[in-house]
């Protein structure tokens, strides 16, 4: 029973997800709209709470078992609590239920967002440039014909997208564009078709109950 009901629900809702794309009947479309605008919205909200609960549980467990880098789990939990308190009482833009403003400093979600998240996120991404430069210097070698081709096309595309490329040759940006539009698209399309067919096969296997690993316990 523990397995039959979820499998049955997946089958029904899986089919219901496909049908509205191929049958424009008003009853089918209306049912689809009801499911999306009512049931799925509520489910998504529950999934959000479940996700947050799971995140906290995983990190609490990590702290309890003193796993590697467990100290960072404290950072996550403390940040989570502080952000939640500020969000609940300070609101999004200082419009919360409690006065949370000291001078011109407002304790609200935007203050955290613009003063913590934006600089931290930008810093993390900016560091990538340095690691990429160092890694490219060490690893990007013309060891084989394929690697040489990759290297040459990388140089052309890099120079082609920069204003400098145009100064080297007015044809360089167009050539870079051609590399992206022809050989790149040929490869990408092959990958896309492969991924799409794979996703279709997996989706069908899940809907028909052949693939059951998502229930936990492998393919039993």
């Amino acid at each position, binding site marked *: 029973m523990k397995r039959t009901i979820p499998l049955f629900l997946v089958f029904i809702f899986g089919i219901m997800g496909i049908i509205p*794309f191929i049958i424009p009947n008003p009853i089918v*479309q209306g049912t689809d*709209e009801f499911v*999306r*605008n009512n049931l*799925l*919205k509520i489910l*998504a*909200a529950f999934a*959000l709470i479940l996700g947050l609960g799971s995140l906290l549980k995983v990190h609490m467990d990590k702290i309890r078992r003193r796993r590697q880098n467990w100290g960072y789990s404290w950072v996550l939990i403390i940040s989570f609590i502080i952000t939640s308190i500020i969000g609940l009482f300070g609101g999004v833009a200082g419009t919360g239920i409690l006065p949370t403003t000291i001078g011109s400093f407002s304790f609200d979600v*935007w203050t955290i*967002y*613009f003063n913590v*998240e*934006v*600089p*931290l*996120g*930008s810093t*993390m*991404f900016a560091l990538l*440039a*340095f690691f*990429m*430069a*160092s890694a*490219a*210097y*060490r690893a*990007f*070698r*013309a*060891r084989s014909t394929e690697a040489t081709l990759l*290297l040459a096309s990388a*140089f052309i595309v*890099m*120079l082609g*997208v*920069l*204003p*400098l490329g*145009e100064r080297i040759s007015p044809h360089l*940006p167009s050539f870079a*564009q051609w590399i*992206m*539009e022809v050989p*790149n*698209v040929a490869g*990408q*399309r092959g990958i*896309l078709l492969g991924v799409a067919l794979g996703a279709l096969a997996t989706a069908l296997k899940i809907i028909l109950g052949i693939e059951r690993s998502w229930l936990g316990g492998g393919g039993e």
Partner: protein
Amino acid sequence: MKIIEILTKIDRRIIYLILLIAVIVPLLFPSPEKVRVMPPVEKFYYAIDKIPEEKALIVDFDYAPQTAPELDPMGFAILRHAFKKRIKVLVLSLYVQPLGLARNALTQVVAEFNSAAQTNADSIIYGRDYVFLGWQVGPILAMLSMGESITNFYKVDYYGNKTDTLPLMKQIKNYNNVGLLASLSGSDIPKYWVMYAQNRFGLKVGAGVTAVSASEFYPYLQTGQFSGLMIGMRGAAEYEEMIEKNLNIKSRKKASESLPALTYAHLVMIIFIVIGNIGYFIKRRKK
């Protein structure tokens, strides 16, 4: 032997330092670079430019602060273009994180236009000229549900107003009243707009993406599923160029200003790759 050592074993701190200088110096002394506008951006520009008066443009801000330097200038340029042409604009984010960036862009561009406005008709008014729909749970739900009714899915806007009371939303009911959706994203979101909103409702989609992810979006441009494609800082600079040239919008060109830093950073990387390869070939020949 010594040359090989030098060429193949440059300390990573030296690489970091040179790259840092290459990025910082051009940013300290900004000089906007002129760029040639390539067809994907040109197509994007005209797709927005030709939106009929009775239809709206949806701008989907779906990027985190990490990718904001590349995608923010695109958002600013598109909003400037739309407001200058008096195209009705709906702004939304499918995830919570980009909401602040969307709000920032809207606030700044609206303020720019309103500071130059002489009359109420010249001004950009909330509810009449644009609406900030904000965020609702479930990205794919939003894509599908807006095809039937935007106000049914976004019952309230970002500021808590009931959407069905806003004058603009009385005209813009679903995708039939939308001329184009501009999806600015650091992830796969533009593809999902094609899969769900375009395939089912025929919504036209244009994409603004980061340079690092650009290659995977070209197939959609080639098939015509994307009405235009803006790629990274260069794409944003091209769009800035277009709005300056065609609409005479004289505002700060953030992407064009950042291009020299990008150029020097790429040059540094190319030089180091070449040095590394020279060292590698000398070493191989000696073996």
